[in-house]
């Protein structure tokens, strides 16, 4: 079967998982990734919910507070009012960084992106989400019945580092 990848593109495949957010609630698709905020020199593994309905990847206090001191939130990029899940408008800081996907042999495939980082004072308990800014580089397969969460990226110039 002929490949539909151009000669310059490389395919990367990553598996996620379904998990319950709340007792009795629906299971939602998640993927385990790495977040790096290069201006602050920090990186951390984060379980992010896949949110193809969102343009931007978000980082919620549950994850950002473990990466940044409270005083560092003031140093994040510009503040903007963003529309989050359900159409609620909240204050968020916009910061450049990268999301990383673990590859075999202690390597990471990085995708540079911009994060909406929710202000911790908002007391949000939402999960951090992987949005279309990242998902648009590939194909996402979700099947709740068979518990399949799969992302395939087609990258022509992948950023790969060892860790």
């Amino acid at each position, binding site marked *: 079967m002929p490949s539909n990848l151009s000669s310059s593109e490389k395919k990367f495949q990553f598996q996620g998982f379904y998990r319950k957010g709340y007792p*009795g609630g629906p299971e939602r698709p998640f993927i385990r990734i790495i977040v790096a905020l290069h201006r602050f020199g920090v990186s951390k593994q984060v379980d992010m919910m896949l949110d193809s309905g969102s343009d931007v990847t978000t980082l919620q206090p*549950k994850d950002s507070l473990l990466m940044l001191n409270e005083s560092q939130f003031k140093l994040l990029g510009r503040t903007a009012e963003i529309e989050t899940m359900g159409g609620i408008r909240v204050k968020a800081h916009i910061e450049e960084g990268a999301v990383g996907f673990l590859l075999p042999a202690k390597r990471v495939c990085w995708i540079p992106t911009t994060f909406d980082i929710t202000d911790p004072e908002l007391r949000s308990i939402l999960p951090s989400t992987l949005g279309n800014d990242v998902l648009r580089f590939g194909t996402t397969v979700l099947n709740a019945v068979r518990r399949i969460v799969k992302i395939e990226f087609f990258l022509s110039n992948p950023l790969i580092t060892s*860790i």
Partner: protein
Amino acid sequence: MNNLQEFTNLLKEIATENKLYESTKVLSESQEFIYAHRDELIKQYPDQWIAVHRTDIVGHHKDLLILVRKLRKSGMPLQNIALEMLGLEEIPLALQFIL
């Protein structure tokens, strides 16, 4: 950032400085412990945030900010800690901001 190579080098440097590989191993263990024991943990810490390091519950509180301040003060390696809200009821995601 001048170019992609410079950015790649910076990410590699951050990953090394943060001992990212070791951290992902420990954090995965912490997170998996929560997922596997969620039902028991909810009974023990209803409507609270819990902090887990490997298989140890290292903190719990109703307020996330207070919990993280306590963890930071104790000198725990925050990079290796998993946090989870053990909510008793399903709340529509949008409402969580205003409750």
